[in-house]
């Protein structure tokens, strides 16, 4: 007995507890309108819903409306997983009576002794519409509940900065989309575009313009703007096959669906493409936008002439990989460079193109030597950092060893070469001796020293002339000098003769020599030419009288005779005075 009582008490406590829990749930009393804006010829449905049973429901006065039907009451109550849910709805169908903005007033209900009120709602009644929504066909429902929108990841990108455009299908509750086709594909003028394939269509709940939808991505396209300024993306039009639920139900109570076709277009989008900054733009910039790495790698650096090596110019990273050119590899003229092989390994993803592009050059050195391949510079614009980045590579040095003198000679070797083996003309070694000297640079044209030495001899010419003239003035000519010397000798010997008056031999010798020198000076003749006849002749020519010349000849004869026959001292005195007289006479007559 005690036990039964205990069980009953427990059960009662449980029931009470559940009741209490149900009682604890928040009490809701709400109003919902089928639409907030309607045409004059349309109908409005107003539902007042409560989640607890109440009493004394009082409907508001529907000013501006005429009640066509109502209040009709519907109640639902269920137990799901031990949770009780309850709902009671009072519905009215209203017909607007006039245009304008009307208010659906507050409804009242008393629940557990408390009075609850709904919020007042505004309804706008407009002009009569062509097709009242109440008479909606399946097509109308499809048109209202199926929309296509486009979303752009960025509306003001830089030139060549990748953007993503996503086309989404929004489906209102209850409508099924069975198929879609693109009718009018958007043309992406001034954009480089790449379609991203959609692998699976997954529905996600979203809210768009206040209404909730199930959304699915139909199409994703990567766009790289190729022109600056405002560019518009034309609408994309889809044709969609939809199933719309009707009010009719099948045997099992499920709604019947009616097929419809909806043609939906996206709105036109305007993209404002920014120009890349002009300032600090590197010379090596060729239009790459994104973020990249840059490599130049040879597969070998030492090889024989005539064999090939490969140099790969490679850019990896994220950005407009297909839309710029790789920097061209420059090689010394002696290296044969072939057109590069272009390779692309690019993945397109929602964040843009990503991967690597490369140019592989085949290079053949035809001559022995060492050839530097200069480093390359690659620049790109980083739209995140909003600045240019330049990446440079190191110089590569290629050593071509041995082999033929030139490519041509290597070829001719195969055909016919009877000539002795061609020896390669090697790189010459340094010179071992030197003759270092100050660099002769300046010309002597502006050198004063040069002119001094050069023109000095010309100054010497007048000096020479003056010297010659001086000599001429002094002694007429060379003959005069001789004559002067002879007359000096004549006087000298005459002086000797005077001293030797006591010794006849030396006296006459001196006297003869004196006279001979005198004649030499007077007549400019040599001793060898002195004959009496010539003396007489020459003296005559100089205007000397016959008497004087006769005395001279006589005196000369006596001098000659005195050498063979002795003479007296008195004769000697006589001859000396005669000689003096003759010589003075000769001088006188010559001068006159």
């Amino acid at each position, binding site marked *: 007995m005690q036990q039964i009582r205990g069980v009953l008490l427990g059960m009662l406590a449980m029931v009470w507890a559940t009741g209490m829990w149900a009682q604890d749930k928040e009490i809701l009393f709400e109003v919902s309108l089928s639409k907030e804006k309607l045409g004059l010829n349309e109908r409005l449905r107003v539902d007042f819903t409560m989640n607890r049973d109440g009493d004394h429901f009082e409907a508001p006065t529907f000013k501006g409306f005429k009640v066509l039907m109502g209040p009709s009451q519907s109640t639902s109550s269920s137990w799901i997983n031990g949770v009780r849910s309850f709902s009671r709805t009072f519905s009215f169908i209203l017909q607007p009576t006039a245009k304008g903005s009307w208010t659906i007033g507050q409804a009242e209900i008393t629940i557990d002794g408390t009075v609850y009120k709904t919020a007042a709602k505004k309804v706008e009644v407009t002009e009569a519409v062509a097709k009242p929504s109440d008479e909606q066909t399946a097509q109308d429902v499809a048109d209202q509940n199926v929309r296509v929108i486009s979303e752009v990841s960025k509306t003001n990108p830089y030139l060549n900065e990748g953007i993503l455009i996503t086309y989404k299908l929004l489906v209102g509750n209850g409508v099924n989309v069975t198929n879609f086709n693109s009718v009018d594909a958007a043309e992406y003028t001034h954009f480089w575009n790449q379609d991203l394939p959609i692998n699976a269509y997954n529905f996600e709940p979203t809210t768009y313009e206040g209404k909730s939808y199930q959304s699915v991505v139909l199409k994703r396209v990567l766009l790289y703007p190729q022109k600056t300024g405002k560019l518009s993306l034309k609408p994309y039009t889809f044709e969609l096959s939809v199933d719309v639920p009707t009010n009719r139900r099948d045997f099992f109570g499920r709604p019947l669906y009616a097929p419809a076709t909806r043609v939906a277009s996206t709105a036109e989008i305007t993209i404002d493409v920014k120009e890349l900054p002009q300032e600090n733009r590197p010379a090596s910039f060729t239009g790459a936008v994104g973020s990249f790495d840059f490599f130049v790698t040879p597969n070998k650096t030492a090889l024989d002439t005539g064999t090939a090596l490969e140099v790969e110019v490679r850019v990896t990273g994220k950005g407009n990989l297909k839309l710029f050119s790789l920097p061209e590899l420059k090689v010394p*003229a002696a290296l044969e460079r072939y057109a590069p092989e272009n390779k692309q390994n690019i993945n397109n993803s929602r964040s843009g193109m990503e991967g690597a592009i490369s140019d592989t050059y085949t290079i053949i050195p035809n001559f022995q030597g060492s050839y530097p391949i200069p480093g390359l510079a690659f620049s790109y614009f980083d739209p995140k950092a909003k600045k240019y980045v330049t990446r440079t590579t190191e110089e590569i040095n290629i050593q071509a060893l041995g082999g033929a003198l030139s490519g041509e000679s290597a070829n001719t070797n195969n055909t016919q070469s009877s000539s002795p083996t061609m020896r390669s003309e090697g790189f010459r070694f*340094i010179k071992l001796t030197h003759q270092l000297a100050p660099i002769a640079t300046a*010309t002597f044209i502006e050198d004063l020293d040069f002119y001094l030495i050069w023109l000095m001899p010309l100054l010497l010419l007048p000096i020479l002339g003056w010297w010659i003239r001086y000599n001429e003035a002094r002694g007429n000519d060379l003959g005069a000098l001789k004559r002067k010397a002879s007359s000096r000798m004549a006087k000298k010997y005459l002086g000797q003769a005077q001293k030797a008056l006591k010794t006849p031999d030396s006296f006459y010798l001196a006297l003869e020599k004196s006279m001979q020198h005198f004649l030499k000076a007077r007549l400019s003749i040599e001793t060898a030419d002195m004959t009496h006849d010539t003396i007489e002749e020459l003296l005559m020519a100089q205007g000397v009288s016959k008497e004087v010349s006769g005395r001279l000849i006589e005196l000369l004869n006596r001098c000659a005779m005195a050498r063979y026959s002795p003479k007296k001292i008195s004769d000697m005195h006589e001859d000396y005075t005669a000689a003096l007289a003759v010589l003075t006479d000769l001088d006188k007559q010559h001068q006159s």
Partner: protein
Amino acid sequence: MKTRLLILGLLLGNYCLSWGQTNMQDQADAWWAEAQKAYQEERYADAIEQYEKINQSGLADEALYFNLANAYYKSNQVGNSIYYYEKALLINPKDEDVAANLAYAQKMTLDQAVTPLAPTLGTAMVRSIVQWNPAYLKYGAWLGMWLFVTFAAIYRLGGTARLKKWGFALATLSAITGFLSFSAEYLRDHWTSKDQPAIVFGVVSVREAPAVSAPELFPLNEGTKVQVLEELDGWGHIALADGTQGWMELSGLKKLRELPE
């Protein structure tokens, strides 16, 4: 008295100068030996350093330029290498070693070799005049003048008719030699100032006009030889060997006749 002091001063200055020069020569010989050794041991950077020291000191010859160019070639400095080979060729255009190694260096340049214009008779003559050594022309002018005066004196004072005849002929010949040497030097100087070969360093743009904004005609790479025709505000009007002309910044080239700084 004053002139005597002047002469004394000149002699003293000359002596100091020659003493300084011999000192410099000894120093240059030491550098040369060091550089040769470095080159042989393939320490090309050291060799360049020593050769450059000689070059900076103002002493030079064809061998120095050739060896320096070789060292630059071995260290892959195309521009400097070609520059000094060309300098060696300015001194002796017929050196086969220089020509052979210059061909090697030119293969390192990025520009394709251009076919030079065939020299006209005028340019060939100018080129040969430019090659003459001014020192010989100077001595030629001096000797001609002194001999002229000597023979003129012989003609004037000559006793016999034969002596006079020879004196007159030789005096005329000497006078002609003297004046020809002088005018050859005048021409040489004139044409040398017009002949301004230069080597391009780095990569430069040849433009239509001497302005950065002027359209680019073509780029030139290091090691290319150009002729500077005119200069204007740091820009040079240049011509390539094939006659192509344009303007480029003078900072991008080094003139062959320029002295080391």
